[in-house]
């Protein structure tokens, strides 16, 4: 009896130690994931702050090899591209989301649209760039902010669709029934009662999509293309912050490397502020 009991204890101790080891490994993994984030953001912050100057935010680029200049036109360009992306993606995305939530809860077509929206999320952004080149750059005959904004809009679209649908679904059916019982038509119930009730969450989803689109580089390489000068004409090539960072990073000039880090700091700040705002605005709604 005693021997048996002793063996059990030893066995149990071994099992506990194995458990601790593996639990420790999961803690280590989580630490590693978070550590990498801090390693990346830390370098961006330190090198970015030391490279940041007023010229970066107020001037346009100097010719290659010349020190100085800035990325002001690229920052404005990114804002314009994101604005155009919203023009392309919001009406379609919100409309499709309304369809999925209000009319297509279980239909085969709705199921297919839902599935394709999810799959669209996984289409590489460079492929979206090729698509925008084929449908907008080739017919227009030149690179343009329009094509870049369209590409970013395609990238935003699936997120907008799914965010709209999920937020509308959170609105209880009793609200819809109350509206219908008052004799209000169905479309007015959708647009005037259900949509405003879910607006907060939808704006959050849109903000997340915008944050993602603003940091995209690949789809802009051969659509917006980049521009050394100020441009506010959507039919002309336009500079964009991520694009500028890329070009400067792979250039052989030290001063451009400095500006690339400073630009990265500006970009990361914009993106993180947007997702932080979204996070705070949606406290308890999106966080599962």
């Amino acid at each position, binding site marked *: 009896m005693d021997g048996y009991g002793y063996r059990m204890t030893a066995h149990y101790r071994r099992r506990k130690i194995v458990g601790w080891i593996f639990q420790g490994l999961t803690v280590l993994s989580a630490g590693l994931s978070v550590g990498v984030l801090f390693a990346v953001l830390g370098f961006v912050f330190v090198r970015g702050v030391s490279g940041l100057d007023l010229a970066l935010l107020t001037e346009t680029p100097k010719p290659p090899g010349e020190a100085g200049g800035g990325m002001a036109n690229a920052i404005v360009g990114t804002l314009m591209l994101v604005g155009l992306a919203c023009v392309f993606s919001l009406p379609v995305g919100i409309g499709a989301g309304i369809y999925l939530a209000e009319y297509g809860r279980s239909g085969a077509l709705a199921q297919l649209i839902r599935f394709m929206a999810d799959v669209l999320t996984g289409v590489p952004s*460079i492929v979206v760039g090729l698509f925008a080149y084929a449908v907008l750059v080739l017919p227009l005959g030149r690179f343009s902010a329009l094509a870049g904004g369209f590409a970013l809009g395609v990238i935003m679209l699936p997120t907008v669709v799914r965010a709209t649908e999920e937020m509308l679904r959170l609105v209880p059916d009793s609200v819809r029934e109350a509206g219908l019982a008052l004799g209000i038509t169905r479309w007015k119930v959708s647009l005037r009662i259900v949509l405003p009730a879910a607006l907060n969450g939808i704006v959050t989803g849109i903000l997340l999509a915008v944050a993602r689109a603003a940091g995209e580089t690949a789809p802009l390489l051969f659509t917006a293309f980049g521009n050394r000068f100020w441009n506010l004409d959507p039919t002309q090539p336009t500079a964009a912050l*991520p694009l500028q960072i890329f070009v400067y990073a792979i250039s052989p000039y030290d001063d451009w490397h400095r500006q690339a880090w400073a630009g990265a700091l500006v970009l990361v700040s914009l993106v993180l502020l947007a997702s932080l705002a979204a996070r705070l605005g949606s406290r308890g709604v999106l966080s599962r």
Partner: protein
Amino acid sequence: MALPATLRRPRRISSRTEDLVFQGAVALLGVAVLGLAVGIGLSLAGEAGPALGRFGPGFFARSVWDPVREDFGALPHIYGTLVTSLLALLIGGPVALGTAIFLAEFAPGWLRNPVSYLVELLAAVPSVVYGLWGLFVLGPLLRTTVQPALGNWLGFLPLFQGPYYGVGVFTGGLILAIMVIPTIAAVSRDVIRAVPDDQREAMLALGATRWETVRHAVLPAARSGIVGAVLLGLGRALGETMAVTMVIGNRPEIPASLFGPGYTMAAVIANEFAEATSDLHLSALFAVGFGLFVLTLLVNVAARLLVWRVAWGPVGGE
């Protein structure tokens, strides 16, 4: 029934028409989303036509890429894409899964949300910023420390031979490993949490330790969802462009060593498209893009089906 016609008819007809018009309009927008997915495939295939017509399906199996002589084959790029993505899953997958298990099972309540949020932030960092970091921080670090160490220990394998450049397939894979962590971790965490507590309680009641509960009750029940999460990560790795472009070395060859410079499908499009002058070169790049589209589509469809089954279907029945 007995309502006066004036009260009934005009209003009902007009409101029904309004409703139908609205429903038709939003349904049309929904179909537009479908059309977009189809349109991307069709337009890429169309533009890829000349190159695929010239080289045939063998385009994807030829290892020559020579824009000067207009001789194109996508094999080096396919190889680079597959090897970097595989490396990413091998390195990033276990870390992401460990993070997910920690977040879903072991993390104390006060730590759960902050860590979840930080891991999700990894996905919010733009890929060009990862590229910048990889080029100026990670690459030099690998060249001076990690690669010589690997070369010393595993140098008898051809995979770990050759000069250390800092940029190359290995660095590309490592950057991708970081970038797939948030995707795999977030989705795995959700599917692990979807496993009903009964399963855990039954296992604990049998005297299992917390780790044994996770290992033998929770993970098997969440298995197909976790596979789906890994596939979603694979989809992200396959299509990732900027970060890889900046650290892979950009040489259209199949390097024998992981330390050698290579190329990926996304990177060749990013680098050469805007400067391609001949129509055949452009078409060849479209063909590479079409191949990439089909590849990521297959991976993503498989992943979504697996994740959907776990999230919506009966759990733990396998």
